[in-house]
Every structure is written in structure tokens, then in C-alpha cells.
């Protein structure tokens, strides 16, 4: 049994038909319930629910404050390498994009870490492209030895690993895993991943579960919005998170809903998710999974990030660079995608405190 057994029965599900039948009364009934079923979640993702965003927002706000308090957890991404064997059509690291690739040496990792540490940030998310040749787990481990001296919590966002490999990296200091399925629809997944190890849909789909089994404290997942009808994709990501939290009680399962951003290459997204729908996604996610962490990255504009603070968000990235060595080189390299919110840490702190949220830099201490 894995998440695929929950996902696959929906292959024949008539989503458009379901959405057509959702009435205002259905939405109101869901909003009156204490805990939500998957079907309730789908109702909140329906076009009919768009008329209820304010009501959803008020409940989402109440539940978030009650469960998490008036606090926002901050972290920053650290790109270790951009070597990649995949051809994801939507990604700047696509192997077919020609630009000078590189990976940080342990000494360079140290320099980046020192730069990040100046911001008081204690939680980093380390990223690579997918290349076991250039950045094998042993390389990640080397980097961890450096990073452990500067940070109390380290999360991974790299290619999918085996359970034993995750466990090995946990032993070396990792406590969190972020891995996006990108798109749950299998046909689209095949089409936009024409070559490379990432073609294996099931191997990637089961990666969050392998991370849970290996002993990750936090596991975060989500779809890349823009690759398929967002209502279905968000529904499956929610089901995936719900499946994991039921199977692995002790893991903090989180969600993130990255929207497609411009990058090197000329991929045109299938759909663009409007701000209004983005808000609906966050609200529906919060109401379906009241305890799930919800991350909003610097992909989003500063103004929007500020406005959605009270709606269910619990974690934010800040002071990001999506390029390898982005913090230590005068000339910034090629990033994975373009960042929207470029505020420095002082501006972020001021904004959060000004809006009644305590910024939290440290939320775990490796023991």
C-alpha cells in the first residue's frame, strides 16, 4: 500500500462533472463542519467555493492562529549544485540548457553558510539538480558536515533517494525533506519529463513516504502550479499529505503550492493560477489539513506574501538565491527560476512584526 493506491482510483473520476454539481449549499455545509473529508476538500477547491473566500479566510485564520500561534517560521534555500540529467521542460536546470554548471566545494559551502548565518537564519533548505554522478549522497554528506556547524535545522530538496540513503543523511544532520511531484497527472508527467531519471513517476511519488520511513521530522510536498488543472493537482497533493499524516503520526507533513515562474527556456505553462485562486488553494489546504505547515516562497511577490500572511501560511523562505553560489559571487549565476520577493532579512522582520507576527528563525535543535 502506498499513495498510488489512493491516487489511481481517481483516474476515472469525472472532475468537471463533480465541479458542475457543487452548489452554494454544498460549500456552506462544508464550512459548517468541524473536520473535512477529501470530498469536502474538493468542494472547497471548486469554482462554486470562489464566492466564499472571505468566509473560508476567516476560518483559516482562526485555525492557523490557534494551531500555530501568531508566528511565521523563516528559512532560506541554499543551492549546492545545478548539474542535472533531467529534461524537465519547465526548469532552468534542464540538461539541454547550456550554461556553465557548477557545484560548491566544501569551502564555498562554508562561505555561503557564513553569509546566511549573518541573517540569524538557523534553518536552511539545501538543493541540487538530479545528478548522482556530480552530486551523489556522499557529496551531500560532505556539505552537511560544514552546514551543521552553522544551522540547527537542515532540510533537503534534492533528487529522490532510497530509504537507507535518507536515513544516512538524517544521521549526518538532515531533519526535513521537501520533494514536489510537480504534476500528479501521469500523462502530463510523462510528457514534460522526456528524459532522465525523473521519468520514473512512481519512484518520485513514493519519495516522501520513503523519507517518512527513514525518520524525517518534517516532509513537505506539493504540485508545481501551472502544469495541469490546478484544482485536481491541489486535490491530489492534499490527499497525499493526508495519507502521509495518517500513516506516519510523528512526521510534520507540510504543503507548498509553488506557482510557475519564468526561467531559462521557453516553456509556456498550461494554466496560470490567479492570485484569487492561489488564495483559494491556501485556504482549502488549511481547512482540510489544519495542522499542516504551509510554505510560501519568494517566488511570490512581496505584496501578495504580506497580504496572505493571515490566511494559513506558517513558513516563508527569505533572502533567497536560486543560483549556485548566489551569495558569495559578485556576478550572480543562472538561477533555477526568477525570484519575486527580494527583501532582506531586516525588511522581512519589520514587515512580520508590523503585521503582528513573530518571526521564528529557529524551531528545531538537532539532538
Amino acid at each position, binding site marked *: 500500500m502506498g499513495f498510488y493506491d489512493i491516487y489511481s482510483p481517481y483516474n476515472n473520476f469525472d472532475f468537471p462533472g463533480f465541479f458542475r454539481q457543487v452548489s452554494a449549499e454544498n460549500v456552506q455545509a462544508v464550512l459548517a463542519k468541524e473536520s473535512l473529508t477529501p470530498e469536502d476538500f474538493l468542494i472547497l477547491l471548486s469554482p462554486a467555493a470562489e464566492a466564499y473566500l472571505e468566509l473560508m479566510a476567516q476560518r483559516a485564520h482562526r485555525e492557523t492562529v*490557534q494551531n500555530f500561534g*501568531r508566528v511565521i517560521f523563516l528559512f532560506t534555500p541554499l543551492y549546492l549544485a545545478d548539474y542535472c540529467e533531467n529534461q524537465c521542460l519547465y526548469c532552468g536546470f534542464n540538461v539541454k540548457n547550456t550554461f556553465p554548471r557548477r557545484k560548491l566545494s566544501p569551502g564555498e559551502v562554508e562561505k555561503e553558510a557564513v553569509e546566511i548565518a549573518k541573517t540569524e537564519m538557523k534553518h536552511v533548505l539545501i538543493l541540487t539538480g538530479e545528478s548522482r554522478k556530480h552530486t551523489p549522497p556522499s557529496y551531500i554528506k560532505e556539505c552537511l558536515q560544514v552546514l551543521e556547524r552553522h544551522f540547527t535545522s537542515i532540510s533537503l530538496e534534492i533528487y529522490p533517494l532510497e530509504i537507507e540513503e535518507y536515513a544516512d543523511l538524517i544521521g549526518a544532520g538532515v531533519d526535513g525533506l521537501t520533494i514536489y511531484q510537480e504534476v500528479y497527472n501521469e500523462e502530463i508527467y510523462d510528457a514534460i519529463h522526456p528524459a532522465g531519471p525523473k521519468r520514473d513517476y512512481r519512484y518520485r511519488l513514493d519519495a516522501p513516504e520513503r523519507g517518512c520511513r527513514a525518520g524525517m521530522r518534517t516532509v513537505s510536498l506539493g504540485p508545481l502550479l501551472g502544469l495541469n488543472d490546478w484544482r485536481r493537482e491541489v486535490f491530489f497533493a492534499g490527499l497525499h499529505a493526508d495519507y502521509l499524516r495518517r500513516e506516519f503520526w510523528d512526521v510534520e507533513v507540510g504543503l507548498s503550492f509553488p506557482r510557475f515562474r519564468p526561467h531559462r527556456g521557453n516553456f509556456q505553462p498550461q494554466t496560470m493560477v490567479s492570485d484569487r485562486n492561489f488564495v483559494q488553494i491556501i485556504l482549502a489546504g488549511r481547512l482540510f489539513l489544519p495542522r499542516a505547515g504551509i510554505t510560501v516562497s519568494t517566488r511570490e511577490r512581496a505584496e501578495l506574501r504580506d497580504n496572505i500572511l493571515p490566511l494559513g501560511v506558517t513558513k516563508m523562505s527569505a533572502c533567497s538565491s536560486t543560483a549556485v553560489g548566489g551569495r558569495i559571487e559578485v556576478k550572480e549565476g543562472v538561477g533555477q527560476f526568477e525570484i519575486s520577493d527580494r527583501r532582506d532579512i531586516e525588511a522581512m522582520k519589520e514587515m512580520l512584526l508590523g503585521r503582528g507576527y513573530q518571526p*521564528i*528563525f529557529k524551531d528545531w535543535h538537532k539532538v
Partner: protein
Amino acid sequence: MKDSLIIGGTTLENRLFLGTGKFSHHALMAEVIRHTGVQVVTVALRRIDFTAQEENVMQHVPRECLLMPNTSGARNAEEAVRIARIARAAGAGNWIKIEVISDQHYLLPDNFETIKATEILAQEGFVVLPYMNPDLMAAKRLKEAGAAAVMPLGAPIGSNRGLQTKEMIRILIDTIDLPIIVDAGLGRPSQAAEAMEMGAAAVLVNTAVATANDPLLMAVAFNHAVKAGRLAYLAGPAAAKQTAEASSPLTGFLR
């Protein structure tokens, strides 16, 4: 006569304990402490950054307060023990609130692992206050393991549902010869007063205060409620009855 609470050799006058995790600003928490005279404050070690200058929650806890680090984030006894040792080594004192939670949905404590951690840490000289699901046998074992008090939940953390476990807490108060501190779930001052009237030694709140529209005013309200409930307990409330009662209709003839 002074009505003090003594835990681990420390004498306390204020029976409202404060959690810190959900305040919108560390400075607001400090203000709450100043206005209420709260003496015991619990802080998650996971949140304490001993190197940070400004954003360190510790710097906002007044010196006269007794700091009770907690092991929030621990999923088993081993992690709780390690967190406790880190806290003490970092100069956070001798008190430790054990929190072992491996259920991330309802955040219910694991009594079994909590007992194990209590035994180890009490032997190492910590003043151990374990957070627990109110179960008589578990409380008995916590006492045997060396706990200085036990902290049963009134309802799941942050739920503001009040004294859902009232009957079990009543049994603990009646049976266990240790201070019983109701921790978690209290959403209103009236519920805190009720716990104190029953004979709870103290209550610990965070969500109900930190997430109120006016946290400062709510903290003051809780402070009054805890004091009122304690006074009522000391006064020995008359028994409540369902109906008015005629004087001895059946045994009046014995006069």
C-alpha cells in the same frame, strides 16, 4: 496565612504558569508577565537560539521568573532527555517540562515515553514536570519515577476546549500526592477557575492568552480566575444540589 505552592524546593506565590510559543511578539509576552506577576514561564528549547542577540525569546523573560524549558519536538524519551541536557548545559536552569509527542495531529503526549524520560532526568537531578494524558496509573509511575509535579492536559494543546478530562483530573488530584498542574486545552478564565476550584495546584496557558484579541487583558483575566478558583478551593465550597432540600423529612423524628 500564606498560600504558597512549593515545587522542587522552590516557593511560588502565583499559580498561573505561562507558555510562550504563540505570542505575536516576544515583547508582548514580557508585558504579560509584568502585568500578571507570572513566576513560571515555559520556553521550548527548540526555539531558543543561544547565539542570537535580538530575536532570542530568553532575553524577554524577566530575570525574576523561573524558566522551565520544555522538550517540545521530542518524539521519544531519548530525544526528550537529550533536549533537557542541552537546556541545562546552556544555562537554562534545573527545571524541565517533559513533552514527548509523536502524534502530530492531536499533539497528544506519549505517557509511556514520558515516564521513561522522567526517570532518567529525575535521577540526573532535574526538577521534572511531565506533561501527560491524565491517567491514574501513569501518574503513579511518574511519581515513583521522581516527578516533582504532574501536568495533565485538560484538552488537546491549543484546542481551547476546556476541562474535557475533568473526571480524570479530579481522580489525579484526589489520589496523587504531588502538585497537579492542568496544562493545555484551557480556553477561558472560567475553565481555569474551575480547575483551581477542584484543587489543581496551578494551570499553564498559552494559546488562550496569546491568540486572544487583547492578550494582555486576557492574561489579567486568567490571573484573577486562577486566584479566585484557588480561594474557592481553600474556602471549601458547599455541595451543589439539584433541588431545594427540606430539612430532614425522613429523620426529623429522631430529634
